[in-house]
């Protein structure tokens, strides 16, 4: 694609365990990153829990994917926004998360959503 990059947003709203949405969502983000588009990731509600540090999935008997978030930086995916209210409700701060994020008000996130060419919910 030689045209100007399109704005593509991924909205993570599912918890990291209990369903596969965050995991397969992240897989899709990494594929999309190879297309050199303008990518934004937003974490809302339980979606924020997918970024929590020090998760141990051994007892769950499933492959953890938390470390994969760190590879986003290699792909120059740098716009990671978390919803302020969702984060506060869960007693989390950016220090609890495995990658650097920007905390934003719902209104600001809503404004960024309006600029997108496509939004994928996961």
């Amino acid at each position, binding site marked *: *694609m030689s045209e100007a990059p399109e704005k*593509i947003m991924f909205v993570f709203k*599912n918890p990291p365990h209990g369903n*596969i949405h965050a995991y397969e969502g992240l897989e*899709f983000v990494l*594929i999309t990153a*190879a297309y050199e588009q303008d990518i934004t990731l937003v974490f809302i509600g339980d979606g924020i829990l997918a970024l929590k540090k020090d998760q141990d999935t051994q007892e769950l008997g499933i492959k953890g994917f938390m470390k994969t978030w760190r590879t986003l930086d290699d792909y120059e995916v740098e716009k990671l926004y978390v919803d302020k209210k969702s984060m506060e409700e869960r007693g989390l701060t950016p220090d609890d998360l495995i990658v650097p994020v920007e905390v934003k008000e719902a209104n600001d996130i809503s404004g960024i959503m309006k600029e997108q060419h496509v939004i994928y919910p996961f």
Partner: protein
Amino acid sequence: MGRNLFLVIIMKYGILIKESPYNHQASDSAYNFITAALEKGHEVLGIFFYNDGVINSTKHMEPPQDDRHIGNRWSELGGKGIDIIICIAAAKRRGINDEVLGANMRISGLGQLVDLSLKSDRLITFGS
């Protein structure tokens, strides 16, 4: 007699389906949306199945005869020239391969979803 002026905007839609058939309404809602859009003269460039959505592609579905056959719906749309794409990564996890694939569908990579979204005026997602 005044002349009526009709402004017809033809949209190019891409469709993403993320849930399995029967278990979830996504496949039915997507089908209804697609048939309505085609009736209105819009274009549907492709339908991409991801997550449990890939289960929509098995040719082994045998719903009760008085119920809709969701797999056949996709094969029929594929027969009309709509690109029906099944995500290979999600398919492999769930035992979907070329041997079980219904007619007029193909298995391919997530890059095809990126392409579809870039070619479409709107990408509509069914399933959360």
